């Protein structure tokens, strides 16, 4: 067994500081919403606090550390790897690639009430909820022609007319791994003006057709990716 300043203790401290730094980095750069939903965002400060306390506690108490072996060096590097990935990865969110990997019927888990759909302005969350049940879809159908303003990214299937695309947004309940997509078909958009995965704001009139929701566009403008790219379930 080796005390405090041994390579093993320094390596353990390095990994702890790296993970503490990652959570502080997420807080400082406001990037938590790229990975977690609002209901799990508390994990980031909690993770940072436990890790910072662990670093301080480890430094103060200087417990014995097992000597390093080839396997433990690899293990420590493996634990540190996600920190490197997150910090090196430019800010990004799921794209149309992810939408294409998820089945279309998995777009219908969002919970919203018939009352929410029947009154006030309509959101993409309302659309997701409407696809989920006949009652909610009936409530949405009753509002056919309503003016809507949706923000999402462009998802274009091959073969669709140039003035059409799917406006896509993901809903997450805990983290990106559980993302579900909600899509509305935009028609009468400026032909060929918007590339795949471009974030846009669409203003137009909404028309539910069977299990699909169509928006006849009045105006489509490019916008930057929102600070919170995912809707929260």
């Amino acid at each position: 067994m080796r005390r405090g300043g041994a390579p093993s203790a320094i390596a353990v401290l390095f990994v702890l500081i790296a993970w503490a730094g990652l959570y502080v980095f997420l807080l400082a750069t406001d990037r938590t919403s790229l990975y977690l939903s609002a209901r799990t965002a508390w994990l980031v400060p909690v993770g940072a606090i436990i890790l910072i306390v662990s670093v301080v506690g480890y430094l103060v108490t200087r417990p014995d550390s097992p000597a390093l072996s080839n396997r433990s060096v690899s293990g420590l590097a493996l634990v540190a790897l996600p920190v490197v990935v997150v910090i090196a990865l430019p800010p990004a969110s799921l794209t149309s690639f992810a939408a294409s990997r998820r089945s279309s019927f998995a777009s219908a888990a969002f919970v919203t009430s018939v009352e929410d759909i029947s009154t006030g302005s309509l959101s993409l969350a309302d659309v997701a909820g409407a696809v989920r049940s006949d009652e909610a879809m009936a409530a949405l159908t009753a509002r056919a022609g309503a003016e809507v303003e949706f923000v999402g990214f462009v998802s274009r299937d091959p073969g669709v007319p140039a003035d059409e695309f799917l406006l896509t947004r993901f809903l997450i309940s805990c983290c990106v791994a559980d993302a579900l997509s909600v899509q509305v078909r935009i028609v009468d958009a400026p032909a060929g003006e918007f590339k795949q995965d471009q974030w846009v704001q669409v203003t137009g009139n909404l028309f539910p057709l069977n299990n699909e929701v169509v928006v006849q566009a009045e105006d489509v403008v490019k916008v930057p990716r929102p600070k919170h790219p995912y809707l929260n379930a």
Partner: protein
Amino acid sequence: MAQAALTPIDTRSAWRRSFVAVAALAGIAVVLNLLNPARIPALQNFLLVFSSLLIEAMPFILLGAVVSAVIEVFVPRSVFDRLASLPRAVQLPAAGLTGFAFPVCECGSVPVARRLAHKGLSAGAAVTFMLAAPILNPVVLVSTIIAYRGRDILVPIVVGRATLGLLAALAVGWIVANKTSGELLSATAEDDEHAHHADSRAGSFFSHLTGDFIFMGRFLVLGAAVAATMQTFVPQTWIASIADTPFLSLIAMMALAFVLSLCSESDAFVAASFVQFGVGAQLAFLVFGPLVDTKLAFLYSGTFSREFLRTVVLVVGAVVFAGTLWVEVIVG
């Protein structure tokens, strides 16, 4: 070969290998930055899912490690010896129902179970607690209610999830009940346990806390990498075609739960989206996933003996299959 990997290396070698590891990590950072993953959609998708799974799961591992370190340092072994002397028919259900009071997901319950077994609680009780907690804890039950509110299958889903989850946990607990902690835990986990010493209670606490974090962390990283790979390259559409097939739909949803590796606190929202599947198949997803998934497979493999993973997969699979089949017959 394996023994050589575990043999301590001298200080100079340790420094050299540590520098190589740091250089490799720095190299990965540079490559990622130059590569611009946005140009490679599959790579970007993999990295986002991988990072997201770990950013969410690591604090649960830490919370589990804190509880585990508290148990190790502050709870006397005699408490667990007394608990271990209770009849099995009392011990296992009590351990399972304790899950109601432990509101963390499956990643947090593994280090606690490992500690409980090491500290003297019977292997059956430790495993029953570990498997029941991710399903029975109140946060998971409430999120299941929220995900299914307004649906006519709300009651069978919530009651079925809690009941089948407890039954599956009890079944595995019963099967491993005769094992000692040495037989239950992997040799690596035992070695790691013996490696943490300190002169003070505080030192011992931080030694075990950080030890658990590092030990569990590496298996979690491997599991998250495999789960993210499967989420990126295995399209979910393959499963849609068998939604109406009675037996296959149950197995397919268990397989999907294994592949997706979702947190038990969020999986109900995803399960509720599979409206083409019957109540039994949705329930199979909700019970199987928190007990056996890709990242858990790595955590179990690192923590427990080699046959433990096989036992969990077979027993949980059989209980969930039989149970959900009955639910399908009665409710569906």
